[in-house]
């Protein structure tokens, strides 16, 4: 029963919305090949690696900074109407968000070139990403209405939502420039299956005292919802070919786009490293199945207004229909199928790390070729048991950049096990403790990570939950 609850809560969390996930545990965890995916300039030592298809990298995140599942659905005997009002309607603001991300890597691999300073990587993954900010004034209009609110201005700009389902193919080059500097770049080809966004809304709805009648209702709207892919998916669903349509759109039959990731690792000293990466600098051109909906204009209505003297000759006309027509002309609802461009949510990572403690293995020289800087004919770099540091994460969002700060401690236990503990502070939580584990059993590499661990005794009360795990096969080549 408890497991059912867990799965259900996780399901609800994952359907709340999607935010591009901060992978603070995976970042710069360079024993794991997938760390290349968030810093193409990470220092690698593999000769080659191959991710187990569909299992090499799975990550997900779901959450809200303002409310948890437990706040609403705890079986506490409190009327849900009261809970909703006290914990959501009267508390949440348009800055609060519901977001989630799900990323499934279906193939991933990498190999070192003839020039052993260059490492190539490639792969493909499916990403679902959604975010909705709490539409505060829409919620008040929906739950309370506008009665007895003369003069109150309902902000139609509160609606900000964006989401996509994208298949991504990527190819990256990681190059060791010298002993201290490694840089990397990865090109991405996006094939969008579906996309929607409504993030540039403006306007208001206000009831004020009327000039002629009791109330004047003023609607000033500049609303736009852009979608792509949904009509095709809907039609495919009706004809029971949804699976084929999704695959077709994922394999270049949908909207195409280009992106770029950049990254570097630089050793300030033998023990101190700085890294940085900029991810998803890219766009998608939505042209295969776009449909946009807009409501734009300004009107003030005081009901049917009949000045008998002025309208004496036309009193038989349909005043109600005339009023409806006037509103539709002043604030037309339009649809169109123009193509549009969307930009990917660009992410920035940066870190500084200081290693300390005993060198791992035999005085820093490894018993296997499994340390950074050891591959091929390159010079061995000493790797230490411990390291501490800090990381910065930023992501571009409809309401501006969001930021997270992470402090971390990494502990290597032989060549088999590496652990990374993190403490992250962001808008979701100030008690986010995470833990990642990388297990290397011969060529088999397994990693698992989760954060916000302190909430795990009651995950429903958590503002968010996230996980990452994966399975790879890694070769460092023959031992020297």
């Amino acid at each position, binding site marked *: 029963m*408890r*497991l059912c*609850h*867990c799965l*259900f*809560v996780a399901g*609800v969390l994952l359907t709340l919305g999607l935010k591009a996930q901060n992978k603070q545990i995976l970042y710069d965890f360079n024993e794991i090949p997938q760390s290349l995916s968030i810093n193409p300039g990470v220092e690698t030592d593999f000769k080659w690696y191959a991710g187990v298809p569909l299992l090499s990298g799975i990550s997900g995140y779901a959450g809200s900074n303002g409310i948890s*599942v*437990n706040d*609403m*659905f*705890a*079986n506490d005997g409190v*009327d*849900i*109407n009261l809970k*909703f009002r006290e914990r959501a309607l009267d508390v949440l603001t348009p800055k609060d968000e519901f977001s989630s991300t799900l990323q499934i890597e279906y193939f991933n691999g990498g190999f070192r070139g003839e020039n052993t300073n260059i490492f190539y990587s490639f792969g493909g993954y499916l990403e679902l990403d959604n975010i909705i900010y709490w539409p505060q004034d829409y919620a008040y*209009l*929906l*739950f*309370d*209405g*506008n*009665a*007895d*609110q003369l003069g109150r201005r309902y902000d139609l700009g509160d609606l900000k939502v964006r989401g996509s389902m994208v298949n991504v193919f990527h190819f990256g080059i990681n190059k060791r420039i010298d002993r201290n500097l490694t840089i990397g770049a990865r090109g991405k080809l996006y094939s969008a299956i579906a996309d929607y966004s409504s993030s540039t809304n403006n306007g208001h709805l206000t*009831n004020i005292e*009327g000039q*002629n*009648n*009791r*109330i*004047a*209702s003023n609607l000033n709207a500049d609303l736009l919802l852009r979608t792509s892919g949904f009509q095709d998916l809907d039609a495919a669903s009706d004809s029971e070919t949804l699976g084929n349509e999704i695959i077709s759109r994922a394999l270049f039959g949908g909207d195409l786009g280009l992106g770029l990731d950049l990254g570097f690792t630089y050793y300030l000293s033998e023990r101190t490293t700085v890294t940085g990466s900029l991810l998803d600098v890219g766009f998608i051109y939505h042209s295969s199945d776009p449909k946009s909906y807009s409501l734009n204009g300004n009107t003030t*209505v*005081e*009901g*049917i*207004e*009949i*000045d*008998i*003297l002025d309208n*004496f000759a036309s009193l038989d006309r*349909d*005043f*109600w*229909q005339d009023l409806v027509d006037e509103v539709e002309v002043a604030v037309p609802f339009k649809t169109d199928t123009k193509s549009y461009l969307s930009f990917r949510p660009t992410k920035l990572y940066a870190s500084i790390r200081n290693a300390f403690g005993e060198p791992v293995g035999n005085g820093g020289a490894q018993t296997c070729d499994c340390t950074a800087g050891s591959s091929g004919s390159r010079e061995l770099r000493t790797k230490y048991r411990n390291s501490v540091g800090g990381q910065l994460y930023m992501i571009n969002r409809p309401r501006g950049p969001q930021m997270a700060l992470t402090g971390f401690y990494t502990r290597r*236990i032989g060549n088999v*096990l590496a652990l990374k503990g993190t403490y992250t502070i962001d808008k979701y939580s100030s008690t986010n403790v995470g*833990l990642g*584990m990388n297990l290397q059993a011969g060529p088999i590499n397994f990693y*698992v990570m989760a954060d916000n*661990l302190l909430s*795990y*005794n*009651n*995950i*429903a*009360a958590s503002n968010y939950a996230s996980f990452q795990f994966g399975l790879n096969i890694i070769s460092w080549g023959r031992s020297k």
Partner: protein
Amino acid sequence: MKGVRFLLMALVGFLMVTSCSEEQDFDQLDDLTITPSYEASIFYVKAQETLINRVAGLNFFTQDFNFDAFEEPFFTNRVIAGVLTYELENTTSKPIEIRLEFLDEAENVLDTEVFSMDPAPTAILQRDVAYGATGKSLDIIRATSEIRLTAINLGDNSSVSSLPDAAIVLRSSAQFTLEL
């Protein structure tokens, strides 16, 4: 050191396996009631005294107006209560009677509101008419397709009010509660 490893791995395993949640009851959603109240003006009618004086006879104005707002399925299927508020202002020199009749599609009279106003100077008459559990039947509102407005001059056709722009003015607004 082996102990530390064991503890760390045990901790990870423990968190992964035992993490769970307090009992949640998602069926509570069925009890969530959404009953907003919306408010807007309905109609405004103005008849100037100069017009009233020009029309011979008591009944100086009768007109049926199409009014489909209450017939919209979204509204009729969800309305659970409402209040129509009327405001009548008479700045003419005559006593006036206003009669509002709510008609269905077959032009049957469903309900009638009658307002009698003394000649100016007189206070603005305001009347709230409730519909639903504490008032008249909501079926009147749901079935209303037209509104018939009749204005009756209970005075003469020659007197002129000393007030500027003398007229009889009917203002109205509606406040309805819906169950979504």
